[in-house]
């Protein structure tokens, strides 16, 4: 049971740090509040969907930026979608880069758009890593017979 208590504390501290560092925002808390006995894997399911859809959008963005005549409307539409889905799971830093990216789409600056895509990927893989660690900790607690603490 000591192990469970230690793991639970580790999880709470880890989650708190994600919010304090601006990696996640209150929208992630909204997701957690929608998870219940009838929907026990809801957060993992939504976040997994976000991962899958984001990686698809990164491919589309790279393809669009690779064209001889870049279609900035198409580029903007993809970034807009990524902005929406990142905000819906509380991935605040990803969302902020999307806002910057859209500004550069508006002024049709290819060089800055390319930099934004790289920055977007960095922020995305960073939050992906953090969320995967979070889910691993939760799984460890459940496997040790504990419950996930509610903050």
């Amino acid at each position, binding site marked *: 049971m000591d192990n469970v208590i230690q793991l639970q504390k580790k999880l709470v501290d880890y989650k708190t740090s994600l919010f304090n560092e601006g990696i996640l925002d209150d*929208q992630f808390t*909204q*997701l957690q*509040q*929608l998870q*219940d*006995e*009838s*929907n026990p894997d*809801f957060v993992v*399911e*939504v976040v997994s*969907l*976000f991962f899958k*859809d984001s990686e698809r959008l990164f491919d589309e963005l790279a393809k669009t930026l690779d064209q001889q005549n870049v279609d900035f409307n198409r580029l903007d*539409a993809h970034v*807009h*979608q990524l*902005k*929406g*889905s990142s*905000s*819906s*799971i509380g991935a605040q830093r990803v969302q902020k880069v999307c806002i910057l990216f859209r500004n550069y789409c508006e002024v049709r600056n290819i060089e800055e758009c390319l930099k934004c895509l790289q920055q977007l990927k960095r922020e995305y893989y960073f939050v992906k890593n953090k969320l995967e660690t979070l889910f691993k900790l939760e799984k460890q607690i459940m496997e040790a017979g504990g419950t996930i603490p509610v903050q």
Partner: protein
Amino acid sequence: MSGGSSSLGNVSRISALIVDDDPVIRKLHSAMLKSLGIQFQLAVNGKEAVDLYRSGANIHIVFMDMEMPVMNGMEATKELRAMGVSSIIVGVSSRCSDEEREEFISAGLDHCYAKPLTVAKIKSLLEGIKY
């Protein structure tokens, strides 16, 4: 958070339609409606929403995304109102400017909110639906 709320009356008789091309938003808004005990259908673009109504669907409230391929939220809202649809249509958008929001509202929306919605917002929209 599961089941309906007594302040909404017999919520199982309310039917909703979520129109959004983003699978993450569809899943999130679906879970919110499910947590309130609301029946719902999904459409991935405005055309699917319009086709649902043409096929005779009885829907009390529509959550309409603004930007979608094939037919966007503005076009779909105009089309539905031209068809005589009187359902509550709530625009849901991550567009920021007041001008874009006003343009969307003028297409025939009853309300317009930034996405993603919250359970509290949805609940306040459902109160007073006549069914």
